[in-house]
């Protein structure tokens, strides 16, 4: 007999397998749907002999269903083939760049929360004050600004004009600042607005009125009654932002030539390096899945309503 935890774990594992299978299938089809894969891989100006050789080497001459089973078998063995650019096994090539993306993501999230949580609370606590309205307008405009614009502006100011910070690659501690700031700037407005709305919303709740009726002062109302509820609902956004960064920091990494998954993905697509594309997408899918898994556990610990049933 499985207990509830065990069941939940199994259903998660099954979800992961279904996810990875779907992602792999889509990847398999994408390459085959985009025309004759051998022709694409051979590139421009290849002789028919070379194309034929590539076809046979990659098994493209076999029936589609056979190719599919071979592909899935290789995926199960975590074998995505060798990169067409540097001949390394694609997966281990991609995994080399994982730590750098994880660090960037993690720093961006930390930076984002440090800025957004106080700002969101400050805005939400008294939303109608004039100076807070001004900030909230600025935040709305910032939310509408694409991250590449922010990145390019930051490069122009701090790298080109002032010359304080490097603008490309991971060349030292200083190189972290601009990409991290760009990502945090892209995320923070959203978190600020959601948190401010949450804080404001709690002041309209019945429990807030109860606390007031029992003599709570404004500080107690905010810290003991608004925040536990407002931060809890903002956590779900933070989880989504984390997952977004892992997969979507792509443009930022590209702008800063940051050696991470995003850059690898863009480069391998440009180079038609399909094994690397497949390995990268596979790794990102796994990461997003695990981030969601962790966020679910965080929620379960933080929200008493998800913890246990009726006493």
């Amino acid at each position, binding site marked *: 007999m499985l207990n509830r935890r065990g069941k939940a774990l199994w259903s998660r594992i099954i979800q992961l397998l279904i996810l990875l299978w779907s992602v792999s299938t889509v990847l398999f089809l994408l390459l085959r749907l985009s025309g004759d894969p051998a022709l694409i891989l051979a590139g421009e100006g290849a002789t028919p002999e070379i194309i034929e050789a590539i076809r046979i080497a990659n098994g493209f001459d076999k029936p589609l269903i056979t190719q599919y089973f071979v592909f899935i078998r290789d995926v199960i063995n975590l074998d995505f083939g060798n990169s067409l650019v540097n001949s390394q096994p694609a997966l281990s090539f991609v995994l080399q760049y994982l730590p750098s993306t994880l660090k960037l993501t993690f720093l961006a999230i930390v930076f984002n929360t440090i800025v957004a949580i106080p700002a969101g609370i400050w805005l939400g606590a008294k939303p109608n004050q004039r100076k807070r309205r001004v900030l909230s307008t600025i935040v709305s405009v910032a939310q509408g600004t694409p991250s590449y614009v922010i990145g390019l502006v930051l490069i122009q100011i701090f790298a080109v004009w002032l010359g304080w910070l490097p603008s490309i690659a991971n060349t030292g501690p200083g190189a972290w600042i601009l990409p991290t700031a760009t990502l945090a700037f892209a995320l923070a407005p959203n978190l600020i607005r959601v948190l401010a709305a949450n804080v404001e919303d709690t002041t309209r*709740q*019945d*429990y807030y*009125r*109860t*606390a*007031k*009726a*029992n*003599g*709570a*002062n404004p500080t*107690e109302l905010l810290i*003991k*009654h608004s925040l*536990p*509820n407002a931060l*809890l609902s903002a956590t779900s956004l933070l989880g989504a932002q984390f997952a977004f960064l892992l997969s979507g920091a792509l443009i930022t990494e590209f702008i800063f030539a940051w050696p991470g998954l995003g850059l690898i993905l863009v480069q391998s697509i440009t180079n038609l390096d399909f094994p690397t594309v497949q390995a990268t997408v596979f790794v990102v899918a796994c990461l997003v899945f695990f981030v969601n898994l962790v966020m679910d556990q965080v929620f379960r610990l933080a*929200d*008493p*309503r998800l913890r*246990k*049933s*009726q*006493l």
Partner: protein
Amino acid sequence: MINAVEVKNLKVSFPTPAGYSAVVRGINLTIKAGERVAIVGESGSGKTMLGLSMLGIQPTSAKVEGEVLINGVDMVSAPDSVARKLRGKDISMVFQEPLTSLNPVRTVSSQLSESVTRHTNLNKKDAAAKVLEVLTAVGIPSPAERLKAYPHQLSGGLRQRVMIALALINNPQLVVADEPTTALDATIQAQILDLLRSGMGDASLMLITHDLAVAADVCNRIVVMYAGNIVEQGPVAEILSTPKHPYTRGLLAAIPRFDPARPALNPIPGSPPQITEIVSGCRFASRCNYADHVCQAAEPAFENNVACFHPVIGATR
């Protein structure tokens, strides 16, 4: 005997496009120590706003005038830093929705002890003992086990008992209970009414309800409100047997009863005036069978416990 609260000419108004409109229109009300008073009226009669403004927790857009005297402090004119020292200590409030009125992410004991440590200098241990004591007093079974419970883990009736415990925990002189049983099952309702009738210790009770039967069951005195005014008040027996105001008679006639001999229900036609509506004369006149030109011309004063130009004499039926 001291009074639990003295309300003098209390007005609560809200801004509308046409200027401020009053929803509480000059209420005078004194509740004695140990007294249980019901405020009865339809939705929109201003009874909830009366209760909220007595604690000074009305919506921020509201304008409050008049006086609410508790222990020599005027809750209307006192700065918030003074008024909040009385909230939860001298005057407290029980709300209609026991689920949403407790903080969902904090335990029962933390919410109760917060109020104890705020208003007394009890240490943590003594506050915890006080919490247990008051939970026992309001009839929560195995209270020690409920301390660590979150509101969603309790039934509606238990949650309302926790709310009452929260209201009573600092031995206030007045508890305002706003429709405390409306959201509960009938059987649970009866238990909570029992608690309000006989489990309140020394606290006076101001019970806000639309239900005359509930008012009669729990209270000593009934105050009938209509469209922001008190239209009649008196001891329960008098209000039930010889109501003078046509509105009170209408309310009594609209109570459903299990009595085959009784004629069909007799609802009061129409609805109270909107808050923006300008009414000259008696605000009940348009719905009143007894109204004449006098009632259209001026508003009746509150005299001899009734505000009516044509008070009805004699028993109902």
